[in-house]
């Protein structure tokens, strides 16, 4: 295959993997909540939008970067706790699908509220990273993507430390393993859930800033959930490694497909290609890459 441009292939691949990291970042927010409370939190995208919009609006009003970050984080924690109190607690013991639909309603509220408060115009978000590609061995790599990947890696590292070495983290893992047992040994589930929602708020903030810097902070930011969902299907809703590997896989295949076979479809395939990949994979392995296969109890 002398005609094949390997350098270009590697460039596309790396670009895909790096944007895959961004998908993983959103997916991790889902996994955290799904593992502890069995809720597929569709509002993750709206939280992301809310965080980014709040942050950028604060900065535009002259609030220093660091302070804006802290305020936004505080807001996200409050929102997370409020969600747990007002929405999820009254729905305890209801079916997972009911909870999912509630988060769908939640995403409408958050999207509406974010834009009602801060307006609907598009905001630019400058994190101070130039998006100038640099060259490594003839392969062009986006500096911003690399930065985003580093942030994402740091976040994952932080989360694993948090969950491995703190009391809350230990409780989190206990709850994720077995809710009833955790309840039986006296773990206070509501507090753990509130913590997890707050952490999910943090993840939403980080993802919101990175995605916001990439796409501009606007309504469509909340649609990045749609990028995360195939990642979750592929990696399993309950697996953080799955979210990471799934994100990388989807990012890479999506970019490669767009570049190499997209032209046969007339382009624009990225809206659905990830779903088809995830579906095809699921038909072979219904519980995803790392998802657990549960034995049916009757």
């Amino acid at each position, binding site marked *: 295959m002398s005609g094949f441009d390997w350098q270009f292939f590697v460039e596309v691949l790396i670009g895909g993997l790096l944007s895959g990291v961004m998908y993983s970042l959103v997916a991790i927010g889902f996994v955290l909540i799904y593992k502890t409370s069995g809720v597929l939190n569709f509002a993750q995208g709206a939280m992301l939008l809310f965080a980014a919009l709040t942050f950028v609006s604060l900065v535009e009003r002259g609030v220093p970067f660091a302070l804006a970050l802290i305020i936004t984080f505080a807001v996200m924690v409050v929102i997370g706790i409020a969600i747990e109190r007002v929405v999820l607690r009254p729905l305890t013991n*209801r079916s997972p699908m009911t909870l999912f639909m509630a988060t769908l309603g939640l995403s409408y509220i958050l999207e509406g509220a974010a834009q009602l408060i801060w307006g609907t115009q598009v905001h630019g978000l400058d994190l101070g990273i130039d998006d100038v590609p640099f060259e490594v061995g003839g392969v062009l790599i986006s500096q911003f993507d690399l930065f985003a990947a580093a942030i994402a890696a740091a976040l994952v590292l932080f989360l694993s430390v948090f969950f491995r070495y703190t009391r809350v983290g230990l409780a989190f893992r206990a709850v994720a393993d077995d809710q009833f047992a955790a309840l039986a040994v006296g773990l206070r589930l509501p507090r753990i859930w509130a913590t997890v929602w707050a952490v999910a708020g943090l993840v939403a903030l980080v993802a919101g800033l990175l995605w916001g810097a990439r796409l501009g902070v606007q309504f469509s930011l909340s649609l990045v959930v749609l990028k995360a969902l195939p990642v979750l299907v592929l990696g399993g809703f309950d697996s953080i490694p799955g979210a990471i590997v799934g994100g990388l896989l989807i990012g890479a295949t999506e970019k490669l497909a767009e570049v190499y076979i997209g032209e046969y479809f007339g382009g624009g395939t990225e809206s659905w290609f990830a779903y088809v990949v995830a579906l095809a994979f699921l038909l072979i392995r219904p519980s995803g890459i790392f998802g657990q296969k549960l034995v049916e109890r009757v």
Partner: protein
Amino acid sequence: MTVATFEASAPFHIPRWLAPFVVLSFAYIAVPFIGTNYLFEAILLPFLALSLAGVGLNILTGYAGQVSLGSAAFLAVGAFAAYNFNLRIEGLPLIGSIILSGFVAAAIGIVFGLPSLRLKGFYLAVSTLAAQFFVQWALTKFSWFSNDSASGVIDAPSLSIAGIAFNGAVGRYIFSLTIVSLLTFFAYRLVSSQTGRNFIAVRDNETAARIIGVPVLKTKLIAFAISSFIIGVAGVLWAFTYLRTVEPAGFNLDRSFQILFIIILGGLASIRGAFFGAALLVVSPLILSRLGSFLFGDLFNSGVLDMSQRIVLGALIILFLILEPDGLVSLWDRIRKRSVARLNKRKHVGRAAQPTQ
């Protein structure tokens, strides 16, 4: 989610056909005379199309328990298929185009329903998004579907059946009402048949259903096919009787959620629920906009209206899930039962000795 599908019948009997009969008589005879143009164009036409879509989705999600987030795709398939049948097959009567478009939607529904044979719950719900994005993409990408018009816009043809034109607001209303009534009756018959019981069996306990001999795979595919057929025809009504001009972008994810919200608000696994939910969904923004401009004046512009609509809708969903999980229908039934009980009491005082039927 447990859903009351069958109620113990109250001793005081209203014949089962009476309520639909009264509603239909009113809708056919009175409404055309008293209705204003605004009522038809802004309320009744979208209400009818959305109700039918809700009926379709309720068969799949409410009865058969397969959550779909891609309903708008099937609305779009119906609309564009009917447009193309009408355009490309010379001499095909309108009703033929509509039926054929339903079949196209059903066929695509079966294709996107295939994952349901392996996948459950969230995995399936997410996979239905594939239909949503793929269909929207295909309709935008291939201009053949819209007869090479700019950005995929299609215009509704003249509505006439057997030489009678239904082009005015009232005419389109009658046209839509008739199709909706027929398909609703079909749906009602279906859910009270053995196939309908199979839907609920698969939803409530798939393993038990398989063990007692319910053909689970077939049942799921039937649910996908019929649901998509009905939603497809609802799409035709949406495009031909309500909007008259549609583009693929109008059948986006928000539209899919809107239909899902209709059945949550109205009542899952209830045919009537779809109508209740659609009524709420169509009317509440209108009320909200009147109320908003009354309270806040010019401050309540279209952007603010849009956002507050989202908030109100989201809040309604959550409120209903918490307080009235079986939807408006169950609220309605409680009120009705209470008044029937009151009636009964009065009757019993009159002839206490007589046993009730």
